[in-house]
């Protein structure tokens, strides 16, 4: 297992896993581990926010617990739920037992007193269905908890997260407070489709991952696709960088660069020919309008002249 005891250790551990981290990312991860604080990762889609969590989980050899947020996500799906059907089934089965227990009881008060001896058996650990957040708190050897696209969830859900993020604990009314066995490393990602509350932001370290510059992107492509020809790699990275400067509806992100690089390798391309780019551009540009616009209005880009 890797220990993250310096920033360089973080960088090299992630690099060995194939994740090329900028200094910014490495510093924030290092601080998060050392200070035990969650990290809020923001940035355009496809720059490796989720991938960072996966890579960290592999480096730290801790399980990755992934909670995908969506509108209407509530504590029943994120935190815990009672196993209602099991409770019902048990009450049905135990009905007969009740007669035995109450045998010989005199009067109502006595019967109730006898029932009280059994406590809240139906609201105990056995009937608790843990959901991702509770799983993360209970993981024996720690875990990497990824709360993905937290901006898609409702504001109530954010409030639910606050206790977990700040104190690594959660309160379940019927049982009490569950504390983290071993502190999980928490990453939250957001695509800024909604403003997150200040309370949530305050509890996290903030990391903004922008589109990488060409040097970094070159290293990323090389790490992921060592097979690719150097000249081709530099060509395609500079091409993608140019596309990002255009006003597209959805600029190509790192994941698209990698997809494209993979396709080019598959096609045994050794250099970027305009015809080849034209045929494979749909891997890079995901909106039909963007695609048409680039093909028709910016043929200069295709021939690599900008």
């Amino acid at each position, binding site marked *: 297992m890797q220990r993250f005891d310096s*920033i360089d250790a973080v960088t090299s551990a992630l690099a060995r896993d194939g994740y090329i981290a900028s*200094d910014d990312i490495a510093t*924030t991860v290092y601080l998060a581990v050392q*200070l035990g604080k969650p990290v809020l990762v923001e940035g355009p889609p496809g720059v490796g926010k989720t991938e960072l969590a996966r890579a960290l989980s592999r480096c730290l050899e801790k399980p990755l617990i992934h909670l995908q947020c969506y509108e209407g996500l509530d504590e029943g799906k994120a935190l815990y739920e009672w196993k209602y059907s099991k409770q019902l089934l048990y009450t049905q089965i135990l009905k007969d037992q009740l007669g035995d227990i109450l045998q010989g009881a005199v009067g109502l008060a006595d019967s109730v007193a006898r029932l009280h001896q059994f406590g809240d058996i139906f609201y105990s650990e056995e009937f608790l269905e843990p959901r991702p957040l509770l799983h993360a708190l209970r993981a024996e050897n720690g875990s990497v908890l990824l709360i993905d696209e937290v901006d898609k969830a409702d504001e109530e859900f954010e409030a639910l997260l606050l206790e977990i993020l700040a104190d690594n604990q959660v309160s379940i009314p019927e049982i009490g407070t569950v504390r983290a066995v071993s502190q999980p490393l928490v990453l939250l990602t957001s695509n800024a489709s909604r403003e997150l509350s*200040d309370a949530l932001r305050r509890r996290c*370290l903030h990391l903004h991952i922008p589109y990488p510059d060409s040097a970094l992107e070159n290293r990323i492509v090389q790490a992921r696709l060592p097979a690719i020809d150097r000249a081709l790699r530099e060509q395609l990275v500079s091409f993608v960088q140019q596309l990002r400067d255009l006003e597209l509806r959805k600029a190509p992100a790192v994941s698209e660069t990698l997809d494209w690089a993979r396709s080019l390798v598959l096609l045994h391309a050794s250099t970027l020919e305009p015809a080849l780019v034209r045929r494979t551009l749909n891997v890079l540009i995901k909106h039909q309008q963007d695609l048409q616009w680039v093909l028709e209005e910016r043929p200069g880009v295709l021939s690599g002249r900008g």
Partner: protein
Amino acid sequence: MAETLQRFIASLRDHELPIATAESLDALRVAALLGYADKQRLRLGLRAALVKHSAHLDAFETCFAQFFSAADPADGVPPQGAPGLSADSAPTGDGPSADAPALVVARAAAQLDFTPLRHATQRGLYLYRLLEIARADSRAAGTPAYRNQLEAAARAHVERILALTAQAAPRRIQQQMLKRMNLSMLEQRQHQAMQELIQQLARNLARQTRRRRRRAQRGQLDMGKTLRRNLPHQGIPMALHWRQVKPRRAKLFVCCDISGSVARHARWLLLFLYSLGEVLPATRSFVFTNTTTEVSDLFAQHGAADAIDRALRRYALGGSDYGTSLASLYGQIGGALRRNSTVLILGDARNNHAEPRVDLLQRLSAQAGRLIWLNPEPQALWDSGDSVAGTYRRICHRFVECASLQQLEKAVARLLEPR
């Protein structure tokens, strides 16, 4: 060094970064972990701990560059940018005991609290105080040349601190002033700042309102749904379902007097309402002087600010006649008014002695859920001259003065309150 960090954080707060005590503590821990030697890493670490919003990144970078580019004077390192003041150019002939002036100033500065230093006018005072302490320093020499150097060093120090703190403060003061200022007094050069401020206020208001609406959704049990959903549990209500309140699709009809003096208020009111687009669905806008024209399409086609300019150019003719305007307004919206509609009228109720047509206003008031009148005139002037404010006031559900952005904000916040 912790003190330096504190001052850095204070300077960030001046640049409107919301940094709470908890975050300052985080920053201290970060600095302890990373050390001050590697400035680049310190910057990244502090940024992760202190900047919680991408919008604040620029301010942080500027502050950091300003603050940590110069060596910290409190550590006794002579500041850069003051040629001839470094330790090795200490003036000779002042006796062996004299320290370099910059060093003396730095020591003196450590004893002085610079936090109140915000404005350029305070420069002299702080220079004087600093020099007083510096001259009393036992390791300072007394020759005139040395005194001159000391003064130069002190001046440079005060200027640098001023540069760190003074930039942000005027902006905040200006914003506060803009909020209180009468809207008709705004000058052209303030329009940009005003627009930003309005959008900011609208954003805040929208956020608060959204939350309020959510909260109002709970409370009533949806019996039907609860029973249906719990059929698998033999009708035992295991999961409860609450009745969802549909968001209030309130229709808002905004009607602005754009004659003469009121036009300027109309501009800001409309801009404010349009910045609230997220929480104010379905707004229809009208402008009037002596007849009412709908400008909703104009607003849809152009940006709010642009559309307002066009409306003013095209329709702002002549003096206002509320009677005829109300008649044509009623003709256009009378059929569309429901209990959940709100009619918002902005005007000074100066009718040029024409017929006020109180009956029409009464009908508007009766048919709409709410009739709100915003009057940009100070209350003292209501009912003076040709004003019929008093008459209209009795009919409206609310009739408020609205001359500054502050009042406008309050009025619109009330408008958004659930009834």
